[in-house]
């Protein structure tokens, strides 16, 4: 038989244990603690200046060589789009061979072997827009991967695990920017990864290095002294398809609303 004294003692102890909030016994997470102290991690960001781009395509050529993307396939980790807006309101856009050989004629490629000639005097505005993976803060491609083969590193770059990819193509469908494709040799999803092997060694990406005009810049946007970070914070920049909520980390200068 339990004595009255013990019954009250155990009851009070029990209540005290139950009353301890769950948060008080949460195991301290060092990385969370570190983050809350304001110590900022690396976050790779990219800046494209569409005013400076001349459509030479050296970036695409360098990217394809550096990352071993076969020339013949109709896909590329990065590409350059040309937008031509005519005075009668037409919007024409093309990217022949991803812009790898540049834009050497004024003819616009319409696809299926068709071309359209535009007279110079009919052009209202025309410009080039380089595209690449946006390394989104909320990457939909990572979200949909059923096997965990694509992922985001701590410094914000989205990578593909070639050994783990089953080739289902969900990520290719999920990317609002169309940056993903199948690698014909490795039979896995392929995408721009900001030349992860270069940026982690302190080098610039192959495309940034190859651009003669400074139309492409890469940097750690969490670094207060970084040029890309400074421009993003202090100047007028925009991103592609902001409404998708993916928080893209490729910023554009001089973007026009016709660019999608």
């Amino acid at each position, binding site marked *: 038989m339990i004595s009255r004294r013990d019954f009250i003692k155990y009851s009070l102890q029990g209540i005290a244990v139950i009353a301890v909030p769950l948060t008080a016994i949460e195991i301290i997470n060092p*990385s969370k603690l570190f983050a809350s102290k304001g110590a900022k991690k690396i976050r790779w960001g990219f800046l494209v200046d*569409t*005013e*400076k*781009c*001349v*459509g*030479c*395509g*050296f970036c695409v*050529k*360098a990217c394809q*060589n*550096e*990352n071993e993307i076969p020339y013949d396939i109709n896909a590329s980790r990065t590409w350059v789009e040309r937008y*031509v807006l005519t005075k009668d309101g037409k919007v024409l856009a093309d990217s022949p061979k991803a812009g790898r*050989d*540049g*834009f*050497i*004629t*004024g003819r616009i490629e319409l696809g299926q072997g068709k071309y359209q000639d535009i007279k*110079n005097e009919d*052009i*209202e*505005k*025309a*410009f*080039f827009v380089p595209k690449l993976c946006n390394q989104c803060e*909320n*990457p939909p491609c*990572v*979200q949909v991967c059923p096997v*965990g*083969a*694509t*992922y*985001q*590193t*701590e410094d914000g770059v989205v*990578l593909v*695990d*070639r*050994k*783990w990819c089953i080739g289902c193509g969900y990520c290719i469908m999920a990317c609002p920017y169309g940056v993903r494709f199948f690698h014909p040799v490795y039979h896995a999803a392929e995408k721009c*990864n900001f030349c*992860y*092997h*270069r940026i*982690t*060694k302190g*080098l*610039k990406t*192959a495309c940034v*290095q*190859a651009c*003669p*005009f400074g139309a492409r810049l890469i940097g750690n946007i969490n670094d207060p002294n970084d040029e890309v970070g400074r421009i993003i914070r202090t100047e007028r920049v925009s991103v592609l398809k902001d409404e998708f909520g993916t928080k893209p980390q490729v910023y554009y200068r*001089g973007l026009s609303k016709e660019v999608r």
Partner: protein
Amino acid sequence: MMKSHVWRPLYAVIGIVALILIARVFVVPEGFGVHERGYMYGWYNKADEGFWKKVTVKYKSSDYCKDCHSDKYSSIMQTPHAIIQCENCHGPAMDHPENPARLFIDKSRGQCLRCHSRLPYPTSDRAKIRGIDPDKHNPGIECAACHNPHKPSLEGLK
């Protein structure tokens, strides 16, 4: 008491589950699991980052060229073509001069026309580059037959 005809298939099921769990230990890599950003964004094999960090760097930048080819380097630096990386025309250096011993030089007409085919686009810096109409300016002939890409001013004509 359950009968043996209930127990036997149950044993088989338990055996299969156990087999799958044992196989999982060997098949799933050690780094695989839920990482920082939780199941939605952080479910992957962390060890795979190492694979991407190990990819070979092929483009070494003009700084890699300037010591051995200092004459070429310093002369082109005096010209508007100083902004173009050596490797944009000479190809990725990789481990040159060991591998490859010789680099392939792209002297094609298309290489020059990337910038110098005249496209007078408003709102693009392309319009500011001096250019030609490739259909009218000596079609079919390599630009380098007359122009020196390392000395692109018209005084440098061969």
